[in-house]
């Protein structure tokens, strides 16, 4: 029995309601040739401009922002033209989308061509390295505590590296480029499941690519970069399962949904929870519509059955395999909520100032605020259209309403971005909520394009829409990533990406070659990244229960807390890393050790040189290495409290 209307074999090809019909595949070849020629030329020009942007950034000339956006837009604007053009054929559209996905990976490729650079990349690199050395999964990671519990990405990368002989980084690039392509094609296919119009689907893919994480964050060697495409394809399979005729086909698609859900769960905790959230929204919408008899009940049952199964998988995984995850995520959420409450109070405490001390140009900052307004207007228009222009079958309608609810969650997250603890979570959530926003706003964009009858008006509308998309892309990217993540440049202390000067790498190399690997060391955040990855050590950068930062904070004439010394001694910590730049410079991202550190951030360095060089005068710290900025001390707790002769 077929529960909903049978769908055409290929939902992308049939004529559509809102747009002119697709061009047949056998139509003239000139559009393909013209499209290829234009995209090859603009792609080459765009790539050259992106290289120029990196060169300008290395010289710190300030021109990098202009070159970068010019380079990106010089390719993406013609690509969007070919995608949205009514007479573009199905294959050409997919080809342009593929090229779009490839080109939009280029900024990240140019930023980190040789190895890990972003914070989480060091953690995943180490994890993949451990798999290749030890041959085991689920090893604890010293940089990101729970990374080891979610082996999806680094197991994939390590396997490719082992099977082919390419380096870990090249293996990662292979997986990440494939994942980037998958997310673009996935949004296209998901939107086509909801709106049976390839133009709308293409616009949805483009709109999704405007989100703040698309160019840099979700292209990094980090678990979400693989998990988000898996989430999108899980939703594709879920829609197919809901729509498919009863029997083997529905069971088959249900199995695909569960298989991809399981892979998502084994890859990233937040994306797994995000997937569960989207599935629950879908179930709620389907149930409400089933109660109003506008939805076949079997479709609702399918949605619920798969959601419950996915929930069982998520809960089982979090309880059995990754029990530390809740403890890892909980402080961020609790502190963020406290900070929201603090902002609402009269004190205004807990507030975070956007773009504080950022070198981003004024137009990027304005675009960042403008992008929020544009998103609000677009969602309002989408709401109006959803209310008054109903189209598609029951599953499509349910999918569209689900995406609308998901897209609406974009706005509460904007509140969290104003809190230090919530900002990271808010940024991550936008990769999910923008999916909903993109899918429901896409038909509005196509309707606006089709509404204009005269050629001149159409050109004006298209130009305006392209301009707005450019503003959203620039603004969202500026809001999502600070310039030191986006561009190379002179070393900057307190930047995950630019603190890693050769001096730090040399110190970690010395420690590994002379003292061995897997040593327990105390470090700041930035040294910890290098010592914990390439250095193969086990750094700790401090936490509320293990306040290693108190070692650095103690005044030279004060005794170190005996409880802390006891912890260090009993847990056999062997080495202390001191980066003296902490006494001279303010960290760019306002963190010395960890997000919730009890260290003042008032625009001045939080440490005096005396606090950092006091270890030169304590007999329980033997200075074994010094290179000016970086010093390595070996702990000798047996000498604690011994008196040193002044003679």
């Amino acid at each position, binding site marked *: 029995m077929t529960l909903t209307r049978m769908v055409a*074999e290929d939902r992308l090809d049939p004529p559509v309601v809102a747009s002119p019909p697709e061009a047949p595949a056998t139509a003239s070849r000139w559009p393909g040739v013209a499209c290829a020629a234009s995209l090859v030329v603009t*792609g*080459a020009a765009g790539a050259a401009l992106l*290289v120029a942007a990196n*060169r300008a950034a*290395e010289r710190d000339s300030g021109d990098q922002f202009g070159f970068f956006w010019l380079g990106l837009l010089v390719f993406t604007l013609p690509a969007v033209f070919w995608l949205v053009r009514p007479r573009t054929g199905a294959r*050409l559209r*997919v080809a342009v989308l593929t*090229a779009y996905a*490839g080109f939009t990976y*280029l900024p990240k*490729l140019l930023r980190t061509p040789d190895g890990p650079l972003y914070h989480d990349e060091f953690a995943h690199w180490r994890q993949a390295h451990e*798999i290749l050395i030890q*041959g085991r*999964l*689920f090893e604890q990671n010293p940089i990101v505590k729970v990374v080891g519990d979610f082996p999806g990405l680094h*197991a*994939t990368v390590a*396997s490719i590296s*082992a*099977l*082919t002989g390419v380096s870990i980084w*090249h293996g990662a690039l292979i997986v990440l480029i*494939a*994942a980037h*392509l*998958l997310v673009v094609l996935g949004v296209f*296919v998901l939107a086509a499941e909801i709106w049976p119009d390839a133009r709308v689907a293409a616009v949805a893919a483009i709109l999704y690519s405007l989100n703040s994480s698309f160019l840099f964050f979700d292209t990094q060697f980090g678990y979400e970069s*693989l998990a988000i495409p*898996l989430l999108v*394809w899980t939703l594709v399979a879920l829609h*197919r399962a809901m729509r498919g005729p009863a029997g083997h086909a529905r069971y*088959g*698609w249900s*199995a*695909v949904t569960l*298989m*991809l859900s399981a892979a998502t769960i*084994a890859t990233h905790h937040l994306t797994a929870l995000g997937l569960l959230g989207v599935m629950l929204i879908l179930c709620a919408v389907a149930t409400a519509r089933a109660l109003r008899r506008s939805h076949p009940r079997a479709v609702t049952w399918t949605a619920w059955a798969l959601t419950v199964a996915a929930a069982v998988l998520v809960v089982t995984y979090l309880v059995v395999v990754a029990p530390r995850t809740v403890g890892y995520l909980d402080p961020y959420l609790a502190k963020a909520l406290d900070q929201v409450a603090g902002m609402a109070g009269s004190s205004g405490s807990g507030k975070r100032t956007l773009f504080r001390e950022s070198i981003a140009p004024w137009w990027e900052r304005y675009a960042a605020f403008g992008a929020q307004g544009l998103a609000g207007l677009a969602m309002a228009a989408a709401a109006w259209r959803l209310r008054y222009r109903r189209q598609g079958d029951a599953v499509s309608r349910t999918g569209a309403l689900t995406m609308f609810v998901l897209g609406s969650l974009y706005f509460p997250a904007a509140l969290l971005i104003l809190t230090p603890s919530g900002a990271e979570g808010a940024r991550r959530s936008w990769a999910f909520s923008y999916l909903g926003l993109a899918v429901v706003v896409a038909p509005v964009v196509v309707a606006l394009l089709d509404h204009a009858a005269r050629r001149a008006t159409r050109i004006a509308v298209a130009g305006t829409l392209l301009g707005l998309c450019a503003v959203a892309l620039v603004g969202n990217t500026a809001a999502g990533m600070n310039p030191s993540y986006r561009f190379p440049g002179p070393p900057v202390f307190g930047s995950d990406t630019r603190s890693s000067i050769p*001096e730090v790498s*040399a110190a970690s190399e010395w420690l590994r070659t*002379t003292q061995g690997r897997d040593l327990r060391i105390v470090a700041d955040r930035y040294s910890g990244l290098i010592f914990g990855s390439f250095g193969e050590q086990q750094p700790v950068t401090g936490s509320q229960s293990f306040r290693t930062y108190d070692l650095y904070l103690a005044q030279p004439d004060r005794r170190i807390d005996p409880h802390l010394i006891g912890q260090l001694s009993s847990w056999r910590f062997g080495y202390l890393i001191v980066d003296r730049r902490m006494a001279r410079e303010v960290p760019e991202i306002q963190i010395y050790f960890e997000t919730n550190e009890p260290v003042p951030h008032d625009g001045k360095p939080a440490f005096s040189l005396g606090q950092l060089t006091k270890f*030169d*005068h304590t*007999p329980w710290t033997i*200075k*074994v*290495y*010094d*290179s*000016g*900025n970086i010093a390595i001390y070996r702990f000798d707790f*047996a*000498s604690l409290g*011994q*008196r*040193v*002769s*002044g*003679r």
Partner: protein
Amino acid sequence: MTTVRLLAATYAALGLLAAGTHLPWLLAVVCLAALVAIGELWLRALTGEAMPPVARIGLAIASGLVSLPFVAITLHAAGVTIGTLSIAIGLAVLVTLLGGAVLVRERSGAAPADPRLPRMILAVGIPALLTLVAGFGSLQLYDRLPHPPPPGYTSLALNGWAAGIDRPVAIPARGVKVPVRISSAGLPAATEPLRVRMGARLVSGRTLAVAADATSSVDVFVPAPPDACLHRIEISLGASSTIFYGRGPATRGAATC
């Protein structure tokens, strides 16, 4: 492609990957093709129905990629060390299971081959290849352009037996030679003062030529401390220093420490 041919091609690719060659990038292409083939087997085994070509391509890539962590987790759960051979064998077992399921399913009729699929594969493959070429071309260009030199440094470290100092050193009356390692990178050759201090007292000093971009080892003589009390011993080269603690030979009056 028929399932039997697909299985044969996948086994051949896995055999090549297990054997390994000195051409990692060629194997990377083979590996990707094998993964897409495994993804296609997942789809044939689970859904067994026609779908839009672009959906098929995307789902095949996704299913193929996730086969790797599934195999790795299974190997881990079975207590098998994850390595080239074990992954290849694990994938071969997965291919066999999926292939068996597909062949059983196809006994009751296979889904008709989609004539649009080959061209759609080209529509994805050609631009993907072109953008890869453009991307790596840009990287080459970027690499070949001159870049600002990274900041240089000179490091001083305890070396040899001294690198293992983990408690106060008992220094005999004749003194001791402490090996230190001097390394310089990104700085021009220079002459730096090499000094030994015991407590606040300078006990020796000389200049040392530090070569550019080189690492060397130097023995530094440290005389015995005057008594068996704990003394701070600092060896410095310019602004960098190493510090350890030592005691001299026991003498009368040592109890006054």
